């Protein structure tokens, strides 16, 4: 299957999903006008990927902002990863947050409590 690459916009994140090496990354801001329209192709790609994933899947979230409408779609992404893990696949989530941003840090903590997928948390200096 093809990789999924979307450029970052002022209201939507950069998407860089590579099938062959299992490295999937979502970075930037997420507050699109219509979250469902923006995220549907991402969820579709991920669902197809989950059928024949790479040996190890590493999903990196490096978001600087997401609105509450996006938060539901992020949970949908994590639920697909959780299902992969339940199917015996190797999956890890890397959650990056700017060092000043306690809200983004807490969001990573919260998501890691909501799904059964290994989470690693990293702060960085933006």
């Amino acid at each position: 299957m093809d990789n999924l690459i979307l450029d970052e916009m002022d209201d939507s994140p950069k998407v860089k999903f590579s099938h062959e090496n299992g490295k999937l990354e979502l970075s930037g801001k997420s507050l699109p006008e219509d979250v469902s329209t923006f995220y549907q192709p991402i969820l579709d790609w991920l669902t197809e990927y989950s059928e024949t994933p790479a040996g190890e899947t590493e999903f990196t979230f490096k978001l600087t902002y997401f609105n509450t409408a996006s938060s539901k779609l992020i949970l949908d992404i994590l639920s697909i990863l959780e299902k992969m893990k339940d199917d015996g696949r190797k999956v890890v989530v890397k959650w990056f947050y700017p060092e000043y941003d306690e809200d983004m840090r807490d969001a990573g903590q919260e998501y890691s409590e909501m799904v059964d997928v290994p989470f690693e948390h990293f702060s960085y200096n933006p």
Partner: protein
Amino acid sequence: MSDIKLNKGFLDFVYDFYKGMKEHEITLAYEGEINHQIMKTFTSLAEGNMSKNDESELLQKKVYHVMVECLQNISKHAVHPEDEADLEYNRGIFLISRNNKVYNVTTGNVIKNERIIYLTELLDHVNSLNREQLNELYKKQLREGHLSEKGGAGLGFIDIRRKTGEELLYKFLPLSGTHAFFLLTSTIPRNF
């Protein structure tokens, strides 16, 4: 000549308006259509101003978030064109004020009277909860996914309340037998 008199009264109003803005420390005021483009314009304007004023990155982020959530609450009502009265629903007022302790983000928009009870109960409930209860409610709403309904604003209100730590201030003013004006102020403390 009557035009000149009219203009003079108008200019007096403008001056009163200016004085009122100063008195209430309003740094941005807008009335008109609120759509996605307008939301993006105001948020980037506010980001620029706050960064010029050397506000902390965390505070900037919180004010930005409150603005996005409040403005999207209004602009999202524009998606029901089958109802004629909805033409007014994506219009509103938007104000930012600040003093040495807080930023205030205020929105005002027209709603149907039948929404008043729902919004009052929701806002009173959200205001009554502590941080831990708010986190639990947020997670519950996320899991159950009430987002696409018109009442989806719930998640936004919960998140504003928990991220600012402050109660949401609101008021409904009657406009007609069927509609009311809904005013909402979120307060963001400048020191976390």
